[in-house]
Structure formats: structure tokens, C-alpha cells
């Protein structure tokens, strides 16, 4: 028997403990690599030649590797919390699918309306009768259930004359491929009794017998021999839509929509660029909120700070056409950060020294900033001959250099990496960060412990402002390359979701920002490809916030695990949660 030194692992199971210890690293690393490879594969259809044939493919690979790194950080930082975040997103997506499904319940309606034609086909001699609606082999048509009209046509009963023994075929068909109407046709005699009826045409009829037919949804009564001379009626209307059809149509449309949502952003490089550029702004905004919320300050001032950052960087860009970019761009970055800092300092000081509610003051200051931006843009920056309210395009030296051709993925990617690292250093490795965390967990304790909480609260809101100002700079100088009205499109609120999903952990914000930007980009393609409103994604966002903040939901689901946790690791779920938050 030999003595074990303190801290030494027992000999019996070294491999298991190694695995246990590094499980998270392995899982996170594997997930990151898999996603990176998957994205490269989808972007270039799995062909290496196509990849190397694309300009800037190395930079695409680099950015995708960074995405993989974000996933790694997400898993390693949040541990079990990562599952919860993913579950929340999945549940919200399912609810979103339900909403899309409900919105698409009317997609089967297109079978019940549209332009149509009817025709009585016969080789027999036409009768001389002008009283009737239809002549043999003459087309006649209309539109069923036309939307937005006072009295839409829902059925037709048109008469034609025939002799006994005439062989007729009755056709009712969609006018062209744009019309999806699904028809039925009936042959009635003068008394109104139905002699023959048909709902669908066969494939051969569509392809060979009758040239006019468009699809099997059209209706044909083929080769009917009229029993006697007289006036007959061709009756046609759209078929009743079966509930099953309604549901399956809605389902297939929703599937189409969600396919666009979930795979759209990585189909092509330009779509991928939309995702990445949006993600950069969102991550910056999320970072701003994560820092501020960390001190339990519910400041929503990022929107106003973003406008000020964009305004300042835009003004500098417009007024310095001759300075080389290598000097100008760092200066613009500094200036926009400073603008955000100052505009964040105002509500910070009001809260810290006067106790003014930061939520309300920041919301009001947002509107003030937006109006100020509009005013300066409208009366100062707009070129006199411009037809709409926007500044002149920035000169090339003031635009962030693009690193992937045909997209607006710029060097902001590297700026972002720096911002993430600095935020992490600030929160985890500086005295100020320590004070921020203490204030966030217990203000009274912080005061008691000698923290200058007023100064810290003021500073934390101002520091959040720096990052939001950078987001404004990115929008102005990276994406739009000019100043436009509504430059933020209320992105700031989306930043709240990003920060919350990351549970205010600055190292996780990049992942949640990417995730959320992915949904937003997907929503654009969903709207374009499947005609489902972009706003569905904002509804998903609201559901995510509700689910992620409802603490009791977690306790409910984790209650069963609790005992096992105590047995295995010696601490409770609460302490794990607390550990997550640090």
C-alpha cells in the first residue's frame, strides 16, 4: 500500500476522470469543428474546386472557424445551461412553426379561386341556337371567387344546345399555370337533373387527349352521348376543399418556409454574408446589454448610443475624403466609441447620482437621439439634390475594408474579436469588472464592502455605450456606407435577446448573436421564398425572452435531477446556476 499525495487522482480510473474532466472541451470542440465543416460543405456544395475557385475562400473559412470557436465557447462556458438555451430556442421555433402553420391555413384557398375556362368539345354539327351560352368548341371563362370584389363568382351554369346522339366532352380547366383552381364539372339536363359529373382529369387526358387542360385538377366529362335534342347545362365550380388538403397544404407550405429559415443563410456566399454582417451588429449590441445588465442596470439606451455612434462616424467620414483609410478608420472607431460613451454617461449619471429610473430615461433619450439624428441628417448632411433623406455615399477610404468579396463582411470581424476579448478582460479580470459583478448580485453588499457603487453604475452604463456606439459605426461605415433614416431598424431590442440568451456571459454573446442573426437572416429568405412575414421571427424572439426568464420553468424541469446532482457532485442545481453566472 502506498500513500497518495493530496490532490492525486486514484489510480483505478485515470482515463474516465480525464474524459470527465475534459468532456466539455471535447464536446465543444467537436461541435465547433462539425458546424464549421458543415457550413463550408453547404456553402460550396461539398466541392473543393468550387471552394478554391471562390475569391476570398480563405477568409470565409476563417470566419466560419470563428463561428466554430463561438460554439466551443458556448458549450464550455454555459455547461448544462447550453442545453437549456438550445431547448428554449427549439421550443420557440416549434411555436413559431405553429404560428406559420396557422398563417398558412389559407394556402389551400388558392384551389378555390382563380381564372378558369370551360368548353364543350364535340365533333358534331353545331346547332343554330343563339339563346344558349356556349357553342361547341368555343372557350368561355371567368374567374372564381376573385378577392376584394363585391359579388365574387362562386359557380357557373352555362347552357348549350345539342342533338340526341351527339358525343360531347365537357371541360373545365384553369386558364393557365398561374391559376391553381381545382374544378368540378357537371352535365345537367333542362330539368336540372345531373346526367354526369367529374372532378379530376387523368394524366393521359391532360397530356394527350385535350391540349387545353393544364393539370389533373381540371375536370373532364369525356365522350358523353347526349340522350335527346335539347338544351343542356354545363355546371362548374371549384371543388370543396377537404380538411385534409387544407392541413397538408398548410404543413407543406410551413415546411417550405422553415426550410428557408433554417438552411437559407448558408446556401450561397452572398446570403451567408447577410447573416455574418447582421451578426456583427447584433453581437456588439448584445455585448453592450450584457455588460450593463451584469450590474442589474436595466438600461435600454443602446439604441440612442448606436445613433450617436453612427452620426459621429458618419460626419467624420463625410468630412475627410483625403485622409488615408489606415489612419481614418481607427480614428472613426475611437470617435464612435467615445460618442456612445458620452451618451451612455448621461443616463448613468442620472441613475447613479440622482436615482432617476434608468429604464425610462434611456427609452426617452433613445427617442431624443433618433430625432436629433433625423434632424441633422435632414438639414445638414443630406445633399441638396438628394431625392430621399440620406447622406452622400462615403468615400472609399472611410468604409471598413471588405474581407469577403460580394458581401459586406468587413474587418469589423477582427474588431469584434478584440471587443469580445476586452469585454471578457473587463468583466473577469479587472477590479471594475469585479465591482460590476458584485453590484449586480447585491447592491447593498457592494456598498457595505466599500465599492463606490455610484461611480461603477455610471461607468458600466457608459462602457455599454462604447460598444453600442461601435455597433452604430459598423452599420454606417460597414453596411450602409452612408447615413440613412432608421439606420438601426430597432435592432437594439434584439440585442436584449442576444444578451439574455447568453445569460449575460460576454463569452457566450458571440454565439447567441450568431444564432439570432441566423434566424433573422433566415426570416428574410423565408419572407422572400415562402411569403411568410418576417415578423414571425420577432414573435419567436418574444417567446424566447418569456421562456428564458421564467425561472420557475427551470426549477420545474430540473427538480427531478436535483437529487442526482447532489449525490454525484456534492452541490445543488442552484450552486451550479450560480457558477454559470460567474
Amino acid at each position, binding site marked *: 500500500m502506498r500513500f497518495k499525495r493530496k490532490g492525486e487522482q486514484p489510480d483505478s480510473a485515470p482515463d474516465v476522470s480525464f474524459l470527465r474532466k475534459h468532456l466539455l472541451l471535447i464536446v465543444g470542440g467537436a461541435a465547433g469543428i462539425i458546424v464549421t465543416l458543415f457550413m463550408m460543405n453547404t456553402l460550396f456544395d461539398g466541392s473543393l474546386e468550387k471552394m478554391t475557385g471562390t475569391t476570398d475562400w480563405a477568409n470565409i473559412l476563417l470566419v466560419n472557424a470563428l463561428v466554430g470557436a463561438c460554439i466551443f465557447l458556448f458549450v464550455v462556458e454555459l455547461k448544462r445551461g447550453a442545453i437549456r438555451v438550445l431547448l428554449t430556442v427549439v421550443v420557440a421555433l416549434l411555436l413559431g412553426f405553429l404560428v406559420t402553420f396557422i*398563417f398558412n391555413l389559407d394556402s389551400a384557398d388558392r384551389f378555390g379561386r382563380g381564372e378558369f375556362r370551360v368548353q364543350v368539345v364535340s365533333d358534331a354539327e353545331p346547332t343554330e341556337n343563339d339563346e344558349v351560352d356556349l357553342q361547341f368548341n368555343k372557350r368561355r371563362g371567368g374567374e372564381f371567387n376573385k378577392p376584394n370584389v363585391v359579388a365574387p363568382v362562386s359557380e357557373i351554369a352555362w347552357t348549350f344546345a345539342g342533338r340526341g346522339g351527339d358525343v360531347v366532352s365537357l371541360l373545365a380547366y384553369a386558364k393557365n399555370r398561374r391559376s391553381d383552381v381545382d374544378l368540378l364539372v357537371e352535365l345537367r339536363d333542362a330539368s336540372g337533373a345531373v346526367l354526369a359529373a367529374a372532378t379530376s382529369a387523368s394524366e393521359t387526358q391532360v397530356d394527350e387527349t385535350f391540349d387545353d387542360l393544364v393539370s389533373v385538377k381540371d375536370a373532364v366529362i369525356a365522350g358523353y352521348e347526349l340522350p335527346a335534342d335539347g338544351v343542356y347545362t354545363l355546371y362548374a365550380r371549384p371543388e370543396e376543399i377537404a380538411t385534409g388538403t387544407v392541413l397538408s397544404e398548410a404543413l407543406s407550405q410551413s415546411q417550405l418556409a422553415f426550410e428557408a429559415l433554417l438552411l437559407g443563410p448558408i446556401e450561397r456566399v452572398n446570403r451567408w454574408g447577410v447573416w455574418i454582417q447582421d451578426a456583427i451588429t447584433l453581437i456588439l449590441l448584445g455585448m453592450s446589454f450584457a455588460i450593463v445588465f451584469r450590474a442589474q442596470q436595466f438600461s435600454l439606451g443602446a439604441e440612442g448610443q448606436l445613433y450617436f455612434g453612427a452620426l459621429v462616424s458618419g460626419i467624420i467620414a463625410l468630412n475627410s475624403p483625403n485622409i488615408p483609410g489606415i489612419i481614418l478608420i481607427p480614428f472613426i472607431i475611437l470617435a464612435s466609441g467615445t460618442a456612445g460613451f458620452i451618451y451612455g454617461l448621461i443616463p448613468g449619471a442620472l441613475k447613479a447620482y440622482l436615482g432617476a429610473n434608468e429604464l425610462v430615461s434611456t427609452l*426617452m433619450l433613445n*427617442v431624443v437621439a433618433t430625432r436629433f439624428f433625423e*434632424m441633422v441628417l435632414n438639414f445638414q448632411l443630406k445633399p441638396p439634390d438628394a431625392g430621399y433623406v440620406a447622406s452622400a455615399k462615403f468615400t472609399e477610404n472611410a468604409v471598413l475594408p471588405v474581407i469577403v468579396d460580394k458581401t459586406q463582411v468587413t474587418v469589423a470581424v477582427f474588431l469584434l474579436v478584440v471587443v469580445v476579448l476586452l469585454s471578457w478582460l473587463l468583466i473577469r479580470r479587472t477590479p471594475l469588472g469585479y465591482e460590476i459583478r458584485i453590484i449586480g448580485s447585491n447592491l447593498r453588499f457592494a456598498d457595505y464592502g466599500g465599492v463606490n457603487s455610484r461611480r461603477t453604475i455610471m461607468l458600466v452604463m457608459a462602457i455599454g455605450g462604447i460598444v453600442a456606439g461601435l455597433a452604430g459605426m459598423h452599420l454606417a461605415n460597414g453596411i450602409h456606407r452612408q447615413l440613412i433614416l432608421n439606420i438601426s431598424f430597432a435592432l437594439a431590442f434584439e440585442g436584449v435577446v442576444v444578451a439574455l440568451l447568453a445569460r449575460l456571459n460576454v463569452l457566450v454573446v458571440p454565439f447567441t448573436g450568431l444564432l439570432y442573426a441566423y434566424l433573422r437572416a433566415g426570416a428574410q429568405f423565408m419572407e422572400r421564398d415562402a411569403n411568410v412575414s418576417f415578423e414571425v421571427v420577432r414573435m419567436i424572439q418574444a417567446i424566447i425572452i418569456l421562456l428564458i426568464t421564467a425561472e420557475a420553468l427551470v426549477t420545474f424541469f430540473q427538480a427531478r435531477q436535483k437529487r442526482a446532482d447532489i449525490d454525484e457532485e456534492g452541490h445543488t442545481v442552484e450552486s451550479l446556476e450560480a457558477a454559470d453566472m460567474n
Partner: protein
Amino acid sequence: MFENVIDGIFSAVFVAAILRVTTPILLPSLGALISEKAGVLNIGLEGMMLSAAFTGVVVSAYSQDWFGFETGVAIGPWLGLLLGVCVSLLLSFVLALFHLDLKGDLFLSGIALNIFGSSATVAIMFELTGDRGNTSTLASLQMPFIQLPEFIRDIPLIGGFFFDVFDNQSMMTWVAFIAVFIVSIVLYRTPFGMHLRAVGENPEAAASVGINVKRIRYYALLISGFFAGLGGIHISMGYLQLFQRDMTNGRGFIALVTPSLGGGTPIGAMIASSIFGFFDALGIRIGSLEIPSQLPQSIPYFATVLALVIYALQRRISQRVSEMRTASGAGFDAAFWGSIQRISILHMLLMMVAVIGAVTSGAILSAPNGFGGAEAAAPAGLIIGAASIILFLIGLPFVRNIFSIRENWRASALVTIVSLGIYLTLFLMLFFQPLLALVIGLVLSAAVWFMIGGRVLMRGA
């Protein structure tokens, strides 16, 4: 030009306009007040208002299809009102459920509801009309307007003015102002109101005497949802007849501040809402002047921030004074300190005007093209800015330390009288010669100073 604006401001039409635009702030303000009294401030008012506004428009438009034109027009607005308020109640129930039962954060759940209200209305609007901006293709209806009987016009002196102000106002405006008094009675004269206030002030104490805190808070959130729903209905069906995306335009957030500004009473909330209504209506009317519309539009928001500051400072002063009252016991001179407090409020309001002046000058200097060109605007902007900063700085010592009002009451009096006098003079110059205006302005401001507390200070000194 200025004269036209001033004439407009003091007309019955303008007062009527104030009432009209106050209504959609006042109704959610009452909701915010009740929820705040119960300690569960309803951040989701904006989303609830939007949902109710949209539901009202859609239901009233479709009821003409459902019940035929005649019946639809007759019952449509009421059905829209009913269902709109129901939707708003449903959302507030969700908020209450997530906050009170599922222990979600009230603030974040409220934000979620705002996002939901804003997005769901647009998404459904897109499904129904194919348009994501507004519902102008739907033939939606309007809440009825209330006509006053003609004989009121014949009442001597005030009859005509009264008639012009109150005639032909939307029913919802009447509902809003009557609701103020109902809420007052419920809050201060019923057991439920007392429980509600108790729960807000000290939930543990309330629970210890057997009040069901959670249930009271559920009720409070539902009532606030009810008022938000009414406010939303007024926005889309009270004066307009359509829904636009995000048409509440931050009123749900302004409503969160008005109760605090009004000192936490329904009447106070009504007055604070009317001030916002005044600024709103002014912003519409001032459009006839050659200044950028963005400036008057942003002043209410800016004023809210300043008002928040004044409120916070004032709360601190009251606390200080009440501490002194406890400490000095019978020797405490209530009248004296009361007048000091009133004068400090006057100081703050004057500084608030000075800050707004500084902001205005900043706006003039940063966008001179909107104010008639750089040459005309720059001197005006500089003068306004310099004057505002001077007036701000001389007022600052008295706001920082209210004891200096007692010690240097002569300086304080000079500052208040001069500042207020300048503002009044600027205003009176529209009617009188400048010199006469200055004299009248100074006399008026001295009178104001004397009335609100100067006489006590002079005697005390």
C-alpha cells in the same frame, strides 16, 4: 407668425386637441398607476395597446362581413372594443402568469410582450391585407363621438368655450377622464384599493395580515391591461380609423412615467398626462413655424428625462425634510420648510427650462439649415445657448443644496425672479412693447416668488 401660434394655443380648439391627444396617454397611465401601486409596474403596456388597437380595427372591419352591413356598423365598434380589451387582458394575464407564478423577471417579460405586440400585429396584418404598413384597405369603424346639447352654449361667460372644448369629443376621451375619478375612489375609498396599496408598499406586511399578495397583484396587472386596451382602442378607433404598425409610438412608455410625475395619484397622473398632451398638441401646431418638426417632437421625451430628475431630487428633499421633522420634533417650522421646498421646485423647473433652451440652441447650431440658414441661426443659437447656460449655472447652487436657499435667500430670490422674469418677458413680448413686457414679467415673477414662499422666507429671516 408667432402671433398665429399663440392665438392658436389659447383657443378652445387647441384645448380640445389637448384633451384628444391626452386620452391615449391618460388611459395607460391609469393602468401603470394601478400596477405601480401594487408593486408590479406593467412594462408591457405598449404591446398590449398595440394588440388591442389592432384587434379593434380588425374586428370592427370584419363584423360588417359577419353580421351584414347594417348590424355590423351598429355593433362593430362595440365588438371591437370588447375583443380588443379582451386581447389586452389576455396579454396582461400572460405577463402576470409569467411573473407571479413562473417567477419570470417582470421587466423582461414586459419587454417580451412589447415585442410580441409589435410583431404579431404586423404579421397578422400582413396575412390579412398583404400590407405591412397599415390597414387602410380594411373598412374599420370608429367609436362614437359625443355631442353636447346645444343649451350649454348659451350658459353665460364660459358656455361657449366649454361647448367648443367638450363638444364632439370621442367617447373614449370621456371614458378616460371619468375613469380618473373612478380609479381615485377605488384606490382610496374601498378595501380593495387599500389592499392594493398595502401590497405595493410592503408585501410582507400585507401578507402577514392575511392579504393574498399574489391575487391582488394579478388583479392589478389585469386592471392595467384593461386600461391599456382602452387606450389602444382610442388610438386606432377613437380618432383615426386604421391601424398603423407601431402606432402607439412610445405612449406606453411615457405612461410609465406619468404616475410618478403626478405624485402617485390618479389626479396627478391626469395632470402629468395633460402636460404631455400639451406638448404633443403643440408639436402638431408648431408645424406652421419654420423649424424642423423633430425639435418639438423630441421635447416631451426630453422633458420626461428632466422631470424624472426633478422627481428624484424632490423625493430626496422630502425625505431630508421629514428626517429633520422627526429630529427636531416640536420646534420644526413646517410652513418655513414647506416654502423652501416649493421654492426649490421652482428653481428646478427654471433649470429644466434652461436645459431645454440649451438643447434647442444645440439643435439650432447643429442643423442651421432647418432654422433659416447659417447666418440667421448661428447668432440666435449662440445667444439662446449662452443665456440658458448662465441661467442654469446661477440656479445650480440652490438645487444642489436647498439649505443655501435659506442662507442666501436674497440671492435665491434674485435668481428665481430674474430667470422667471426673462421667460415671462419673452412670452409677453408677443403682446406688448419689449420694455413694458420686461416690467410686467419681472413684477409677475416677483409676485409668484412671493406667493409660493417668499413671504415666509422674508419673515423668517
